[in-house]
């Protein structure tokens, strides 16, 4: 079996498991909606009209990041709890294939949640987010976030603190993703061209390339016994 086939087998397994339980996806989506609602409470008391536009990108990415953390947590904790992680590790595949499989399935789940969130967000915040350039930014940001998140989630699932620890480890490291994604999203909302926000999406691209490479070199150390 080629490397790619192994990766896609893991992705497929995650998708089938998710289709049967739907526990992760529904939790991520409902949580993301709740984050938006909470932000609406927080902002509506102070910010009005045109200024909502200015806070919208931040609220959007916080919702994505928090939902992503939920998904990332489940990615390995669920395997661990059901004793499936050992099974995965015993499978005759390179351990990095597990990383890429998990990362891709997390990215897929996050992207589906994000796709559903965009119309909700557009309705709640009254800003038009249905822009294909935004899709590009969201994909890059999500891949970057999930790529480093998957490394850390594989670690925290095996610690005592588990779910509690992941955001603490992840958020400072993923800060550049959030900064760049929010800046790029605001640029698009302000009607800037892709060339004008090139710095930001290039930063996202760099992040999304660097961390899979880091994972490729270090992932073995996280999962081996």
């Amino acid at each position, binding site marked *: 079996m080629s490397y790619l086939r192994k990766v896609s087998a893991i992705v497929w397994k995650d998708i089938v498991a998710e289709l049967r339980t739907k526990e992760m996806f529904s939790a991520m989506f409902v949580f993301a909606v709740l984050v938006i609602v909470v932000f609406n409470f927080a902002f509506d008391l102070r910010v009005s009209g045109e200024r909502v536009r200015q806070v919208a990108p931040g609220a959007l990415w916080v919702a994505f990041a928090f939902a992503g953390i939920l998904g990332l947590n489940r990615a390995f904790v669920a395997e661990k709890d059901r004793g499936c992680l050992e099974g995965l590790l015993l499978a005759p595949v390179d351990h990095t294939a597990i990383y890429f499989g998990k990362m891709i399935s997390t990215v897929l789940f996050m992207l589906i949640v994000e796709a559903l969130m965009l119309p909700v967000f557009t309705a709640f915040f009254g800003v038009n987010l249905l822009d294909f350039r935004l899709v590009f930014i969201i994909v890059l940001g999500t891949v970057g976030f999930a790529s480093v998140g998957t490394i*850390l989630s594989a*670690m925290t699932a095996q610690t*005592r603190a588990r779910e509690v620890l992941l955001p603490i480890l992840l958020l400072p490291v993923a800060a550049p993703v959030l900064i760049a994604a929010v800046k790029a999203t605001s640029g698009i909302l302000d009607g800037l061209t892709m060339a004008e926000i090139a710095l930001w999406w290039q930063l996202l691209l760099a992040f999304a390339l660097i961390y899979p490479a880091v994972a490729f070199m270090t992932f073995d*150390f996280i999962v081996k016994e």
Partner: protein
Amino acid sequence: MKRQREILLIGMTVLSAVTVLIALYLALAGAPDANLSSETGRYAQRIIYFHIATAWVGFLAFFVTFVGGVGYLRTQSRTWDIVALSSAEIGTVFMLGVLVSGSIWAKPAWGVWWVWDERLTISLVQFLIYVGYLMLRASVEDPSRRARFAAVYGIVAFISVPINFIAIRLWRTQHPLVFGNEDGGLGPNMMFAFAFTLITFTIWYATLMWHRIRLERFRDDVEQLKQKLLD
């Protein structure tokens, strides 16, 4: 040999104490007044010597943690893990020192305790990374797994520092909120105090590292003795 090392360690401890005192004198009295109009500003400016030296150690320590992590993953030797751990602990304290001394300076100079300036933000993020590193260590029982996880996190986090720096710098320069142009050039006497403090803090860091590594070694010895008694 062992005795010689002990004497050297005592020597370095004394050297650190003496040079820190001299640096304190230079910073508070030795260096000339800054060319600032307000009296509080002139006093407050003197914190800069310790502040920058502290920041230097904070980032240096993180680099050493990264090197320790890489070393551990390559060799699986406990020594590298101890180096990484010791450096992270010392770095946490120094990074907190940077945040506190920065705030103390910011209040008289800028009128606020905190602004989301690039250097402040990166220091805060760095401090939080350190805290995460220590929390991760505390949350893993098995020593070899703890060392491996910590090493990987040290590497992952270290790589994020330059990216963070770029992101925060770009973000800040797009909104030019220029608060401090304090680098209006340091005079020759100020430069001396500055360089002296920097060297002093580096020696101090090395001494602390030595003490901390020695302590961890003792801990390992005690652990081994306990095991022997139990067997």
